[in-house]
């Protein structure tokens, strides 16, 4: 085989690209996996994973230089002393903000799967049916039934702990045993059942190994040790990331060629063949350009970079970007509204506490507008719920008195409780990304300009969250209830989706039901860019299921010589 020619090229070694690579390589397809950032090898490249809190020079805090140089990245909750090396620094890849937007990036093999929050919930049929029912965006070309088996397929491989709750609004998966609930979480769950017929507090579903299975042993992964410092990379492989699981798995097949430090400039298009023929790559270190060729191209560079690459893939046939006949590429981008939080206290279990740590919280699935439209805003929100014993440490005074007070630190018997909103935002034509006509980045690629904002629907939903959760907390007997609009910028949720949406009609969407560009069917998009709407669930599980499904379809089509 020519050294620049492959069966498949995958752009981006994050969660979506990693899954596509695994599927292709396992089934004998020669695969080139391109990653713009450096390699991160499992175990070898987790420099802080075994550092104790007292070993950090700044005890986990950021330096003023970190904050000054990275006003955007440093607003991410995980950009701290122990994991900041996995985030792209602001100056490294600049972008334009028509309105404030925090683009949080992780350029390395494994992408953001190293630092992700690991919460994985399936979508339900109500989520896929949302746009058609409520008349926004376009109708999804797939439904829950199309993904059901792929969700299972992914869950069994990555390992998902959870409880079978039997809720149609949040379908059960193939779960490992859940993390233990604590007494206040259990109490709140019972309170919700007592006061509401359609509101549930369930175990969080997270990508952590709580049971050993042959497949995980084969991957070389051990049980989660509940350290809850996953953002550093886990020496046990206790949570799923691409580096511990998908890359080694694909490598073992001998069919994977992984090329880090490869920034994809554009997808190459051949008018005579009416196909994508390859990609143009800029070496991130030498800045040299090189072309690679394949029969099939998967663009999984993360939502906004996938938009950027396709917009930059201009040809005589596609002057506005690859597949962009309808002019919708880069439009209808949405995200999750994480602005609202609520906290309170509960004094009902003074004689109980917890031991150890769990890497998840409880979860309250969406209950607004599930079966019919019932509020003055569209769609709804899910929420987390957590409870932990309140510790009191008195820090007044000086000298030995102060020290004695510190040594008398104690749990008070009071529990702190809290929830955060995960709201669906509506994809709008006005929420767009475009290429800057003049500014280019350090690799000579046009800079992306981002024009995305909240709208009235988001504000109404926020108010409803505060009202409903204040009521739910009050009914449970929680006190000292406080609500907070943290005013975070769009993007800070790190759940941006869309711009290359799936749909039934080439006039109103970019991708078909198999994630192929309508007008260039050997180019697939299976990361967040393909999402027609966002629902409320953490999206990574759906990206992985869609990627696995599309890769297997592509393999079948390759075998039939249809691509």
């Amino acid at each position, binding site marked *: 085989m020519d050294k620049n020619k492959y069966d498949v090229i995958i752009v981006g070694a994050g969660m979506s690209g990693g899954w596509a690579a695994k599927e292709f390589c396992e089934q004998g397809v020669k695969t080139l996996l391109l990653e713009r950032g450096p390699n991160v090898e499992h175990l070898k490249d987790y420099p802080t994973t075994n550092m*104790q*809190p*007292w*070993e950090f*020079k*700044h*005890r986990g*805090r*950021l*330096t*003023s*230089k970190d*904050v*000054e140089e990275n006003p955007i990245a440093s607003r991410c909750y995980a950009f701290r002393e122990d994991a900041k090396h996995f985030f792209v620094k602001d100056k490294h890849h600049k972008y334009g903000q028509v309105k404030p937007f925090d683009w949080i990036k992780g350029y390395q093999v494994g992408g953001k799967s190293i630092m992700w929050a690991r919460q994985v919930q399936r979508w339900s049929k109500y989520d896929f049916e949302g746009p058609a029912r409520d008349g926004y965006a376009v109708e999804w070309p797939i439904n829950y039934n199309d993904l059901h088996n792929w969700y299972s397929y992914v869950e069994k491989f990555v390992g998902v702990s959870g409880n079978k709750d039997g809720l149609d609004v949040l379908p059960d998966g193939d779960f490992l045993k859940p*993390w*233990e*609930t*604590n*007494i206040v*979480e*259990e109490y709140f769950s019972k309170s919700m059942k007592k006061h509401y017929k359609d509101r549930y507090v369930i175990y969080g579903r997270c990508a952590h190994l709580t049971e050993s299975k042959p497949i995980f042993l084969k991957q070389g992964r051990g049980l989660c*040790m*509940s*350290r809850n410092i996953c953002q550093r990379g886990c020496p046990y492989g206790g949570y799923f990331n691409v580096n511990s699981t998908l890359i080694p798995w694909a490598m073992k097949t001998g069919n994977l060629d992984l090329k880090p430090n490869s920034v994809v400039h554009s997808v190459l298009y051949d008018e005579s063949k009416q196909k994508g023929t390859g990609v143009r790559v800029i070496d991130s270190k030498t800045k040299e350009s090189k072309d690679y060729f394949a029969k099939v191209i998967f663009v999984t560079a993360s939502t906004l970079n996938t938009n950027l690459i396709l917009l930059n893939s201009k040809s005589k046939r596609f002057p506005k970007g690859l597949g962009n006949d309808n002019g919708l590429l880069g439009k209808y981008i949405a995200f999750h509204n994480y602005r609202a939080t609520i906290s309170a206290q509960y004094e009902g279990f*003074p*004689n*109980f*506490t*917890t*031991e*150890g*740590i*769990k890497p998840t919280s409880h979860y309250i699935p969406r209950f607004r507008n599930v079966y019919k439209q019932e509020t003055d805003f569209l769609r709804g929100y899910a929420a987390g719920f957590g409870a932990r*014993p309140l*510790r009191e*440490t008195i*820090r007044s005074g*000086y*000298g*030995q008195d*102060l*020290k004695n007070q*510190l*040594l008398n*630190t104690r*749990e008070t*018997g009071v529990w702190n409780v809290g929830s955060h909103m995960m709201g669906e935002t509506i994809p709008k034509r006005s929420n767009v990304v475009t290429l800057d006509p003049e500014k280019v980045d350090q690799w000579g690629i046009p800079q992306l300009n981002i024009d995305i904002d909240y709208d009235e629907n988001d504000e109404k939903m926020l108010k409803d969250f505060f009202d409903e959760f204040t009521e739910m907390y009050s009914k449970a007997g929680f006190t000292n209830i406080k609500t907070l609009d943290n005013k975070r910028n769009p993007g800070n949720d790190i759940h941006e989706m869309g711009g290359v949406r799936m749909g039934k009609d080439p006039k109103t969407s970019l991708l078909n039901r198999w994630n192929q560009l309508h007008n260039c069917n050997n180019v697939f998009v299976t990361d967040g860019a393909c999402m027609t709407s966002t629902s409320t669930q953490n999206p990574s599980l759906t990206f992985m299921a869609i990627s696995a499904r599309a890769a297997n379809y592509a393999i079948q089509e390759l075998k039939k010589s249809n691509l």
Partner: protein
Amino acid sequence: MNRRIAIKQIGLLTGGLVILPYACNVEPNIIYYNLPTIKGAQQKTIGHICNIILPEDIINFPTLESRQEFVLTMVNDCYAESKVEKFIKGFDIISILINEIKFENLSIEEQISFIDKQTKSNDSSSFFLKTLKKYSLLHFESSENYMVDYLNFEFVPGRYLGSVSA
């Protein structure tokens, strides 16, 4: 005691013993690039005030770095320029005052009383002293023995139990 901390402290102790006869007036020679006016003697003064605010206990609560080193590192690295300026201004005020009252000759109670009174003042010395207290607390509360023995910290818990009798 953590092996690494123990080795470091033995090193410091033996190093000190070797140097002591020849260099009784040796001052720490750490340069904090954002605190150019705070040199050896000034650093020592800051270390002393930190120790009055919250006594360092290297036997029971050993740390990888001294209190003085930690506090100055945090100010140097983590404070923005405006806060560094305020910190230095506060230190200048305190320096004048402690010279006037011959701070080092006061009893510990009198030194604490001075710190308490000055923390309530309206000038930058209040900010300076609050900073020393904030980072002294962080240094102590993030020490291995305090976290393990008093906060029940476990690096690898390997479990989560949700309903344990307190």
